[in-house]
């Protein structure tokens, strides 16, 4: 797959505080990458560095296409409140001067806004402002889209529209990075998720369908867990134990589906107590990863 973006050893320190500690990341064409993490983990800082709003202290950012356009949706809608939606976008489009009125109108219609609405943007609801931000981010046909909390203020229909828009863009080859607190949305929208904490990537979860299966599995005792772990290692899989320590439950990453896996476990004598697809268990992975200092989640 063609790489759109490559981050090499990105570090960012502000004063004495280190916000990002050696981030390495690549993004493929058409990939939707989710970034989750506790408040202050460095998610927004990373997006700002990629978009050019912030300079990293160390490291490099490589874009596959030097002229590749980046679209961004900032955390809070950035608008000129006295202008209507169309003129806000026209003003931004005039900076690059690559698109005309037709493309602006198309982008507004794509996100469900009426380009002929004469109301000043200051009177828009938060959801409408967020839709306008989405429109400005896609109007110039970017190759990379950076979304910081894009579902902020969106109603359920808006969230569904966003999801379908992102899938469409992904199919057109646009790479997307989404930073969000909404695990469920990230889980549904993204192909891959990185969990951020304390300035570094502490875990990466691949959610692509048909790539590898994520299975949540619980076994009876420590011997069963050991047997399972050895078998997983021998078969190019990965298993990550979930807390607490005395319950033998984990997320198994394997190329096998549950019906394919079960005969192997029966043959090994592993006593399985529970087994289910773990796609919906990003929350568990996040909680496990976010388990921080002094027993408190941050």
């Amino acid at each position, binding site marked *: 797959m063609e790489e759109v973006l490559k981050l090499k050893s990105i570090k960012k320190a502000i004063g004495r505080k280190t916000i990002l500690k050696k981030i390495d990341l690549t993004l493929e064409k058409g990939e939707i990458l989710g970034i989750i993490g506790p408040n202050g983990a460095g998610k927004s800082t990373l997006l700002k560095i990629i978009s*050019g*709003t912030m300079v990293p202290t160390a490291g490099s950012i490589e874009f596959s296409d030097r002229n590749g356009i980046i*679209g*961004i949706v900032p955390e809070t809608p950035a608008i000129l409140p006295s202008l209507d939606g169309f003129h806000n976008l026209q003003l*931004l489009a005039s900076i690059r001067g690559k698109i005309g009125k037709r493309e602006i109108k198309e982008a507004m219609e794509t996100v469900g806004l009426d380009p002929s609405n004469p109301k000043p943007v200051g009177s828009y609801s938060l959801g409408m402002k967020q839709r306008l931000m989405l429109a400005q981010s896609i109007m110039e046909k970017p190759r990379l889209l950076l979304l910081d909390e894009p579902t902020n203020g969106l109603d359920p229909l808006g969230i569904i529209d966003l999801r379908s828009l992102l899938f469409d863009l992904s199919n057109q080859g646009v790479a997307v990075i989404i930073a969000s607190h909404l695990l469920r949305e990230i889980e549904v929208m993204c192909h891959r998720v990185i969990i951020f904490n304390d300035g570094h990537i502490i875990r990466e979860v691949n959610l692509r369908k048909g790539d590898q299966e994520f299975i949540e599995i619980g076994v009876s005792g420590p011997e069963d867990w050991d047997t399972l772990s050895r078998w997983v290692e021998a078969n190019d899989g990965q298993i990550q134990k979930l807390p607490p320590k005395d319950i033998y439950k984990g997320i198994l990453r394997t190329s096998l589906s549950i019906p394919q896996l079960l005969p192997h476990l029966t043959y090994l004598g592993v006593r399985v107590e529970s087994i289910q697809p773990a796609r919906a268990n990003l929350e568990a992975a996040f909680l496990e990863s976010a388990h921080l200092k002094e027993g408190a989640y941050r």
Partner: protein
Amino acid sequence: MEFMLSAVGLGIYLTYSTPQRTSYEAFSFSIFTILPMALPLFAALSTGITLAEERSLGLLPLFLSREVSPCKYILGKTIGSMMAQTCLTLGTLGAFLLATHMFFPAGPILTFGATCGQSLALENPLAHCMASILVYVLAALAFNGTALFVSVWVSNIFVVAATPTILYFAAFYISALMNSNLNPYLYLALNQHGPSTFASVAVYWIIAAVFSHGLAVLCFSLKKNWS
């Protein structure tokens, strides 16, 4: 606003006695009485807050992600605000000068001219008024630059608008305490304690304007975070 305050100055002028009331004298009295106090605030409020406004609206990331370099952005902002401030001050004071002709006849400035241009006030009062306008344009540019410089770090519009006034009065107070000739008030009021020539006044404000704008451009370009 500047125009209205100058008009108030015109009202005050009528309460003072002078051998001959002329339009040029009315103009000089009005601007030298009121504007030395109000110019820093007007200059900052009218054009100096543009960067802070865009920062507080969160527009900077949208501009910078569209391949506008920080240096180009701040240069554009600086040149734009300087041109706007020049037009605004020049236009307002020019219009006020014209307006004074509606109430008074043209004639020499006998009493209330700038001390540094006394001979000009008597012999060529129009040139005296034009020189005064030029001084105020340059001073307004210096205050505009101060507000831009503050906006590099502060996005609160009220703080940015108030800072040039606060710095101006602080400089006034400190200079008065130290008996310094660099008191900015003296370079606007142009009274008997002030500088001796219009040229020295102009140089003072040109240095202040270039320094404040240059510093704003330099600091903004060297910043590491523009969000």
